[in-house]
């Protein structure tokens, strides 16, 4: 119970402390102390009426104590002490309300001046409330590597003056794209490896973002896209083996998630969305229907291709082309692409070659796909396809 409250409150409390202190690192320490005090007191004394406000105020007090001890931050101390002197009675006001500053924080964490892997890690740490250890485990890197990556990013935010603010209108579309890309990357990281936790985490972040930016079509569309994929997660594996969509047990699909996903898509369309996430969500929705409308799927991929000019999108269109015009036409499309480092490119190609009866070429392509695949269900799937060919 307390655990749930903590997970729900972490992002808001931390964001508020970052806004107040102007630096993520001390804000994180203060938030952690506030949560530790709550964990000790709340079970004994009961949860306060305004838990968010309580945690923020406690965090502020902890931060001031800490700064008093650390005289190297003299200037900041003076400013904060003055603030405290001006409002001495505020220390534990139950009714104090604080603006939600999570949106400022997410734009800070996803600032393009930070490396993408740092953006991802920071977002999970600050807004998702995951521990550095959990993030390191999720991304299969040593704890020290992740810890250094996060520290470096926090220092860059402080030293380079990366703003803690919602970007002005002229920067907003581009910066929002970066935020959506980070969330979707977290989702996909959980998807390919069967690490469902990260996918759920991305969905949680997506839901928060809708709360914070209810009028952005692409934000709704991203949640729709993730839910329509995630709804199938229980059916994607059987005994640790990957099951392709057509062979999945549909009774295992999560109808509530599908409904919520469709509602989010409808809302995105009502907001006149026509961006890349709207199109991808619409495609995900079509994939859930029987029979699949490959023509419509192909057309949507074509629209997406025009917006993104991404070879991965062309690859996905080729899958629709294979259903409509046969594997040979799809193979021609694939062979023009430069995606040698992308595992799904090779597995898609292998499947087409297999259907064309070109077993030797198929074998080579499956082997290449395997080389690029982490341990786990996807690897076992490719191995079984490879075994079928010999």
């Amino acid at each position, binding site marked *: 119970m307390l655990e749930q409250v903590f997970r729900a409150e972490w992002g808001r409390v931390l964001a508020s402390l970052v806004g107040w202190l102007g630096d993520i690192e001390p804000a994180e320490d203060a938030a952690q102390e506030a949560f530790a005090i709550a964990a000790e007191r709340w079970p004994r004394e009961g949860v306060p009426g305004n838990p968010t406000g309580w945690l923020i105020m406690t965090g502020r007090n902890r931060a001031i104590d800490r700064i008093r001890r650390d005289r190297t931050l003299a200037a900041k101390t003076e400013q904060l002490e003055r603030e405290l002197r001006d409002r001495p009675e505020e220390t534990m006001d139950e009714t104090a309300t604080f603006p939600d500053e999570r949106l400022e924080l997410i734009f800070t964490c996803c600032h393009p*001046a930070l490396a993408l892997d740092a953006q991802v890690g920071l977002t999970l740490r600050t807004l998702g409330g995951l521990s550095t250890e959990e993030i390191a485990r999720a991304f299969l890197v040593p704890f020290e590597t992740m810890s250094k990556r996060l520290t470096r990013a926090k220092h860059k935010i402080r030293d380079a003056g*990366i*703003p803690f603010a919602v970007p002005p209108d002229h920067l907003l579309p581009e910066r929002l794209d970066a935020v959506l890309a980070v969330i979707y990357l977290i989702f996909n990281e959980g998807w390919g490896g069967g690490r469902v936790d990260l996918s759920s985490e991305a969905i949680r972040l997506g839901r928060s973002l809708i709360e914070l930016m209810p009028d952005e079509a692409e934000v709704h569309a991203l949640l729709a896209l993730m839910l329509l994929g995630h709804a199938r997660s229980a059916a994607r594996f059987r005994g640790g083996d990957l099951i392709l969509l057509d062979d999945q047990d549909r009774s295992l699909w999560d109808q509530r998630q599908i409904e919520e996903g469709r509602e989010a898509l409808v809302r995105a369309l009502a907001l006149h969305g026509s961006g890349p996430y709207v199109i991808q969500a619409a495609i995900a929705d079509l994939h859930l229907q029987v029979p699949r409308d490959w023509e419509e799927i192909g057309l949507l991929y074509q629209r997406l291709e025009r917006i993104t000019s991404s070879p991965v999108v062309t690859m996905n269109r080729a899958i629709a082309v294979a259903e409509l015009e046969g594997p040979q036409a799809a193979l021609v499309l694939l062979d023009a692409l430069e995606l040698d480092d992308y595992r799904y490119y090779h597995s898609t190609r292998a499947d087409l070659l297999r259907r064309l009866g070109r077993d030797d070429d198929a074998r080579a392509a499956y082997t290449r796909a395997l080389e690029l695949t982490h341990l786990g269900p996807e690897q076992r799937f490719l191995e079984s396809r490879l075994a079928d060919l010999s």
Partner: protein
Amino acid sequence: MRYALLIYDDIEVRDRTPEEERRRITAAVLEVLARPPVTGWLRLQDAESATTVRREQRRALLTDGPFVDSKDFLGGFVVVDSENLDGALAVAEELQELRPWGAIEVRPVREEPLIGA
């Protein structure tokens, strides 16, 4: 905060650019440099004119040419005063859109005094 924009030039591409085009670029660059967030700037002579001073066996050793030998070299500095990184990046992006070569590195200025100073 103050930021230093380190302007890197690619001499080959620059020299291939026609004179008239270069004059047009310079005029446009000057316009950006005249606006308030820019508080100072200077241009450097080409890297060929550089002399590098090192210390080897307690003596100053002079070598002809720049410290880092590459086709990209530091061509100048622009100092920008801005509330945050986005303001400095905006100036850098504007400048870089005008120039078909090189790159601009944006570095925050270290303002705290040297220890003991």
